[in-house]
């Protein structure tokens, strides 16, 4: 009984998904909502605003500078955490370690 019910509900959900997928924007269409004014601004004015010819670097380091600072901090934190977990301390043992 539960099996039949789950199969029927799966088919219904699948039909809904197919119906929604019909309404999705075409792939690569320049009029899509994702290709809005922000990306046009990057393409047209990133050279004069940031002075960098590589558009990816312009977005990464200038327009999204806070994000990249956070990413670098994440990498730094990963390094510090691994160091504290796996580093063998020569001069004195860290507190809390038995023997």
């Amino acid at each position: 009984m539960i099996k039949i019910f789950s199969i029927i509900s799966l088919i219904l959900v699948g039909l809904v998904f197919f119906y929604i997928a019909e309404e999705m924007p075409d792939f690569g269409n320049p009029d899509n909502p994702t290709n809005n004014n922000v990306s046009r601004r990057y393409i047209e004015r990133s050279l004069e605003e940031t002075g960098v010819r590589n558009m990816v670097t312009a977005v990464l380091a200038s327009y999204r500078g806070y994000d990249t600072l956070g990413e670098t901090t994440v990498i730094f934190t990963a390094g510090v955490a691994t160091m504290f977990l796996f580093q063998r301390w020569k001069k004195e043992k860290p507190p809390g370690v038995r023997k």
Partner: protein
Amino acid sequence: MTDPGGVSIVVRTVSRIMIPFIQLFGIYTIAHGETSAGGGFQGGVILGTSIILLSIVFGLKEADRRMPRELLTAFMCVGLLIYSGIGVLDLLSGGRYLEYSSLPLPLPPHEISALSILGVEIGIGITVMAVIILLFFCLAGERDA
């Protein structure tokens, strides 16, 4: 003809020749992040892999002698400090945080921005390189004393 680590002389000779070129390519990747494909993350990883190759071929002790962990820890902090320090310099010279063109240099604004982005990429590269090497050293250095 192998050393106690079991690495043959061919591998040792080739990696001794290749490691400087790998490092040069890493520096190139960092420095050309503005004009072509590349950037701090990628170049930092390439620089890190050169030291990882050194430690695989010549042993962890030799790699630790060339690149001590204290130096790596310092590099890790210095790279992040370069990045955030550029932001603080922008703040001190009257702009917003990481608003590169506010630095008081005798250059047009987009040139100052390009210079600051180069500095930022160098900072990212130093941090990523140090963290990659440190991860390898910490995870690989458990077995042998």
